[in-house]
């Protein structure tokens, strides 16, 4: 039985090799269909992976409170509504918050070292900045609480900016000019890459928040954001509600009025990412399914044609002792062999085309065995699903009529 099956499969392979035009057209359509499906699977996987990475980096136990309502943020307006007193109050009110770190920033500030100049983000924060963002200092050291209290001109530098300003020189201990203010670099932050919205995170200098407010902003009260990390990650979303209530009360916002602040949570970030990649995945998904169905119909039609063309072959096989099932299996294997090859080629095409896609758009695509297995399984579904009818027709041919052709 097993030997007979092998012999029949060998016939299928022979036919796949011999009917080149049929094989070619079936391959093209199946390959295209499977490759688009593979890209979708990989893109979905990539999006998930990216989402998890971003959440991990954001901190699954963290909340970020930003000044200004969500509506104001959407229009690009940045209102400062969070005060240093708010920060203190949060520290006192939330026992489970192990880190409460205020931040304030200035965009597009010119920073220079010798002849080199760059437009940079200046962040003011406390000595807990690198801890609260899980963003380690890899060279030199963090600035200290004393630096913050003493309004000292010290700072941490991002990898990108360090390269731009210092080249291969070690920046630690050197002075840069920030808006005319000399700031000594005491540490270099590790590489962080880009934010979900595509901002380069490594182009920044972090200095004590006091230094930034007093010496650069002439500000004593307001900060732009507040980051909080909780011991009990599982209660993060109840803390979020508490925090909302706390700020509304402190800011005296009457019922029905919108918040004058925005709280960003890991969930928020996933939502953002899904909005970013979701529509593309849906579009690709529909395209993929359609192209796979089209591939199936192309295959079915070419096979029906082939069965018609090979009526005499079927007749002579039946006359020399082939059973209906032998014929059915032969044609079914022909179809599955083609779609399997199409599945493998489709996966390779997906690998290549996704490289292109990642070049054009910063789109997270991640290929694992899942995309390959899904593609291969679908190729078998198409091969069997659309190959069955023609194979049945071949098997059901009356041998007498088949041989008379």
């Amino acid at each position, binding site marked *: 039985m097993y030997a007979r099956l092998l*012999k029949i499969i060998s016939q299928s392979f022979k036919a796949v090799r011999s009917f080149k035009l049929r094989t070619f057209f079936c391959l093209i359509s199946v390959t295209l269909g499977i490759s688009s499906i593979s890209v979708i699977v990989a893109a979905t996987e990539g999006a998930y992976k990216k989402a998890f990475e971003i959440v991990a980096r954001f901190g699954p136990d963290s909340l970020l409170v930003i000044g200004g309502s969500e509506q104001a943020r959407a229009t690009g307006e940045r209102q400062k509504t969070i005060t240093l007193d708010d920060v203190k109050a949060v520290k006192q009110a939330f026992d489970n918050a192990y880190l409460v770190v205020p931040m304030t920033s200035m965009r597009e500030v010119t920073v220079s070292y010798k002849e080199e100049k760059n437009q940079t983000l200046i962040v003011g924060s406390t000595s807990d900045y690198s801890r609260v963002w899980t963003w380690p200092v890899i060279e030199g050291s963090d600035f200290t609480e004393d630096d913050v209290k003493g309004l000292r001109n010290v700072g941490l530098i991002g990898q990108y900016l360090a390269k731009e300003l210092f080249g291969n020189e070690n920046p630690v201990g050197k002075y840069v000019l920030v808006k005319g203010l000399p700031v000594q670099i005491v540490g270099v932050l590790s590489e962080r890459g880009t934010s979900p919205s595509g901002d380069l995170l490594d182009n920044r200098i972090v200095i004590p928040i006091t230094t930034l407010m007093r010496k650069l902003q002439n500000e004593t009260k307001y900060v732009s954001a507040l980051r909080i990390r909780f011991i009990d990650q599982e209660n993060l979303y109840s803390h979020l509600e508490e925090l909302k209530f706390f700020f509304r009360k402190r800011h005296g916002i009457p019922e029905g009025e919108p918040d004058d602040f925005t709280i960003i949570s890991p969930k928020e970030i996933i939502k953002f990412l899904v909005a970013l990649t979701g529509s593309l995945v849906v579009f690709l998904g529909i395209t993929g399914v359609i192209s796979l169905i089209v591939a199936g119909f192309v295959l079915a039609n070419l096979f029906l044609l082939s069965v018609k063309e090979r009526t005499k072959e079927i007749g002579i096989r039946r*006359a020399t002792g*082939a*059973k209906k099932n032998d014929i059915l299996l032969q044609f079914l294997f022909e179809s599955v062999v083609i779609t399997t090859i199409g599945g493998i080629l489709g996966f390779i095409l997906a690998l290549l085309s996704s490289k292109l896609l990642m070049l054009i758009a910063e789109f997270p695509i991640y290929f694992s065995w899942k995309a390959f297995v899904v593609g291969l399984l679908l190729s078998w579904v198409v091969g069997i699903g659309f190959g069955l009818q023609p194979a049945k027709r071949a098997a059901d041919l009356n*041998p007498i009529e088949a041989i008379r052709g």
Partner: protein
Amino acid sequence: MPLCLMENIRKTYRMGDLEIEVLRRVNLSIEKGEFAAIMGTSGSGKTTLMNIIGCLDVPTSGRYMLAGREVSNLTDDELSEIRNEHIGFVFQNFYLLPYATVLENVLLPTLYFKGRRDSTERLVTDLLGLVGLEERAKFRPNQLSGGEQQRVAIARALINEPELLLADEPTGQLDSKTAKEIMGIISKMNEQGKTVILITHDSAIAAYAKRLIQIKDGIISE
């Protein structure tokens, strides 16, 4: 016990309300080693008779014993096995697989052979030698002449060592010289002990057989 024994074989076809009787009470007995020709014009029923003898079709009624086995009420799969083991077909149009080599074409019936056989390799060499095509084993049908293609078909018909060789107008597509060669090979097969049934409308070809069976309007006579 004869190789083929037909008793009261009837075959009718329905065409709408009309029932057409193609074979009417055929009684026929063919012994092992015989060389018989069934002669008739087109429409005489000779093709239907051949189909039943070759187990490609079953009779409407009557009994057909082939190699000692009742075959008139077997399933499609069982008939396939009978054809594979007991009958070798040679057709007018050769019916070789165009994409397979001579060797692969000859081996076609072995694909569907139920048992195991170690002698196949030797047999295929013998058969190709017998039909004079040892040198052409790797050729494709379209590289062969009509006569050569029919030789391949004969080798294919014999590869499973069937008792019965059933040749349906084997020379119909060939010129008279090649036809003679092919009939020579078939006669030789019969001399070596194969039972041969030849279906033809050509009396010159039928003359090779040792027994002549006429069929007309579904009734046979000798």
